[in-house]
């Protein structure tokens, strides 16, 4: 079902652009221009 490959150390992270709570988009490739980025995934409450 899920054909995506595991993300491993050393590879380039897939880019994303996702909205925050105000609707403003944040793109990973822009975020890392300023600093490293800790990307957390969480279950959420649906």
């Amino acid at each position: 079902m899920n054909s995506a490959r595991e993300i491993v150390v050393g590879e380039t992270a897939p880019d994303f652009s996702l909205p925050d709570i105000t609707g403003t988009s944040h793109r990973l490739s822009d975020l890392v221009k300023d600093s490293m980025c800790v990307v957390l995934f969480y279950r959420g409450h649906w």
Partner: protein
Amino acid sequence: MADYAQCYKDFRAAGAEVIAISVDPPERSAGLRRDLRLPFELLSDRTRATIIEWNVLNSKEKGGIAIPATFLIDRERTVRFAKVEDMMMRVEPRELLEFIRAMKDGDAQAPRARGVNPASMFLRAIANGFRYGVNVKR
């Protein structure tokens, strides 16, 4: 994520931003961010496209939600740390912070996920149930 909130200033000082992604709609994330007083952005992946591309989709629950996971991405957009969590393992923010600091010295050792005390996890689940309501599986 509350523990990342506590360490947020330290992550910023160490040269790292923090963001968190879930399938929640922005209005739901807004409530969580307010309740837990999270200082970092919560991003909404409604289509699950990013969650699928990062291979952290739990397709068995509620039409698909994110598996808890921690990644560190450097300024070249290279993955420097990756840990997809299972039920009883999680990455301590303090350990990731030490990793980031040590990276600059060039002798970083990746933090190991630690076992979580099942009792404390159970208590936290109950507390969250009171706070956010329990989702009954369809």
